[in-house]
């Protein structure tokens, strides 16, 4: 019985957990409640994923008002998969945060940190399961506002400027999105995504639809750090508390990508994108630029977290490249990379955070010789790095395979070459870390060999193990991504 309400409860559980944590005012209880909410979300998302795989998309009318008059929650193979990813990474981040956040934030603000994490999770999950364009904006703002604060909680004062920059750009992006939705609404009279898909082709004038997709793409592009709208990301990821970086890297940009794909393919449809509106080629060009320029910028960073952040911009380029192919294999590869890269990057930020906790920072000068002082963490980091490169046996390979295959099948072998050529840049930046960690002497006064607290190391290693597992046995993720792509491209009509 209760399972019927999972689409709503998936979002409401963390949403309610946040005020409850504020009422309880205890970091310890807050942590426990956050963890419980996350686990509940994981279970619900998993159940939904299984359910939609078995019996097709689920529509849930909130308030029992039928769409398009009320707000519809709609779970299909795509949204369930992303929801599972988000809630799983949320769970891992909360487990990781117990020691990490205690060390970095500390004191009486700690329970608020957990409340904000729950709000962020609720916002992201809401964006994923909603079937309503404006409701998506509301939940986008919930996740964004909580993210700004979470970023600002970083220890360095630069966290504040990074947070402010993110706030400005994020709000500009969200406003662009609302403008785009407004134009769509004025052209069709509806906000429901499925209804939009039906009514948009009948709308009187294609100019409105063209401009609306441009605004929506730019708005969500800011959120997903599409090159060159990524300026906020490196600072935000580099200076946020480790648990926050890990959480955001695996979820925030990924959900924005999902939302973009949803509107592109479920509302507009691949045909319209390729035939009427020149938005796919633009995205492809930007993706190529991201893959090279951002990955290149990653090589010259002298802070590990900043390097990972630039790498994220480059990797997002692969995802948007997959979307820009506008074919089912391309979108499937993009979704698979959303999952695989989400897990990989979360693991890497967690490992970087574990290093920061013991070494006092993540600048390369702090990390010299870390291979000897923290052998397990460092080794796991190298594994994660190999996944960024796309070495077989890691999750990154599986998606690179799918992406290259999709590009060739779409008659765009150049894009396959881009994917592969730019992964050499990943070799360069990962190897910079390897040489620093293994070939440089630890600085004088470096801590004695030893690892980070078990809850941090354990979570990070669990995610790293997942990276390897998804690399060796990649078919489940690719299969789910294939179903997700099918749902995105044909489901809503």
């Amino acid at each position, binding site marked *: 019985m209760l399972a019927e309400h999972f689409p709503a409860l998936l979002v409401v559980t963390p949403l309610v957990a946040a005020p409850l944590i504020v009422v309880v005012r205890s970091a310890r209880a807050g942590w426990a409640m956050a963890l419980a909410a996350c686990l509940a979300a994981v279970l619900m998302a998993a159940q939904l994923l299984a359910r939609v795989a078995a019996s097709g998309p689920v529509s849930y009318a909130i308030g029992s008002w039928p769409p398009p008059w009320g707000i519809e929650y709609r779970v299909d193979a795509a949204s369930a998969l992303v929801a599972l990813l988000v809630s799983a990474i949320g769970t891992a981040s909360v487990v990781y945060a117990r020691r990490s956040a205690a060390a970095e934030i500390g004191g009486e603000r700690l329970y608020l940190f957990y409340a904000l994490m729950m709000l962020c999770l609720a916002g992201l999950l809401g964006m994923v399961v909603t079937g309503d364009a404006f409701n998506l904006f509301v939940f986008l703002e919930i996740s964004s506002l909580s993210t700004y604060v979470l970023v600002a909680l970083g220890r360095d004062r630069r966290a504040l*400027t990074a947070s402010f920059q993110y*706030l400005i750009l994020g709000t500009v992006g969200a406003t662009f999105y609302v403008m785009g939705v407004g134009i769509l609404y004025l052209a069709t009279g509806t906000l429901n995504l499925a209804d939009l898909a039906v009514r948009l082709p009948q709308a009187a004038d294609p100019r409105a639809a063209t401009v609306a997709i441009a605004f929506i793409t730019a708005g969500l592009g800011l959120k997903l750090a599409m090159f060159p709208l990524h300026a906020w990301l490196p600072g935000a990821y580099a200076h946020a508390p480790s648990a926050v970086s890990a959480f955001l890297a695996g979820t925030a940009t990924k959900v924005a990508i999902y939302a973009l794909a949803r509107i592109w393919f479920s509302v507009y449809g691949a045909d319209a994108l390729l035939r009427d509106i020149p938005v796919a080629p633009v995205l492809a060009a930007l993706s190529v630029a991201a893959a090279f320029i951002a990955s290149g910028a990653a090589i010259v960073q002298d802070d590990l977290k900043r390097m990972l952040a630039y790498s994220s911009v480059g990797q997002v380029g692969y995802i948007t490249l997959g979307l820009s192919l506008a074919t089912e294999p391309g979108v499937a590869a993009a979704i698979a990379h959303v999952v695989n890269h989400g897990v990989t990057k979360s693991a890497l930020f967690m490992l970087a955070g574990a290093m920061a906790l013991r070494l006092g920072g993540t600048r390369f000068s702090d990390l010299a010789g870390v291979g000897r002082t923290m052998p397990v963490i460092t080794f796991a980091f190298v594994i994660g790095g190999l996944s960024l490169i796309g070495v077989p046996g890691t999750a990154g390979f599986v998606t690179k395979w799918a992406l290259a295959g999709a590009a060739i099948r779409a008659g765009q072998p150049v894009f396959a070459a881009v994917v592969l050529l730019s992964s050499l840049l990943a070799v360069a930046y990962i190897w910079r870390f390897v040489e620093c960690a293994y070939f440089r002497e630890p600085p004088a006064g470096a801590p004695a060999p030893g690892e980070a607290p078990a809850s941090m190391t354990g979570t990070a290693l669990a995610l790293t193990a997942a990276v390897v597992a998804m690399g060796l046995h990649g078919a489940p993720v690719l299969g789910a991504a294939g179903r997700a792509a099918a749902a995105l491209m044909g489901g809503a009509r």
Partner: protein
Amino acid sequence: MSVAGHFGYWATVFLMMAGLFIVISRGNLVKKLVGLSIFQSSVYLLYIVPGKLVGGTVPIVGEGFTVYSNPLPHVLILTAIVVGVATLALGLAIVVRIREAYGTIEEDDLLAADARAD
């Protein structure tokens, strides 16, 4: 599709450009937030103006009225206004913290201070 029939959109466009221009061009963080508010407020008009029906009335159902202006944009914009003020409050709180941490709220000075720290 007369030009005059689109004046409401022009208001939106102008306010949006003005807001965006202030956000991007001004270095003072408070001024940026002011620009952001104007930028966001342009959306109000984008939604509300087309909802107006000349000769219509406020969408409160009552005897003697038959033409009502469209209530749905009102609902949406109520939400947008609240989101705007929430963002503003957060933004100002961050500005206060930045001022305490750096002693300035001018973007150039902040960048210079961060560059020195590197």
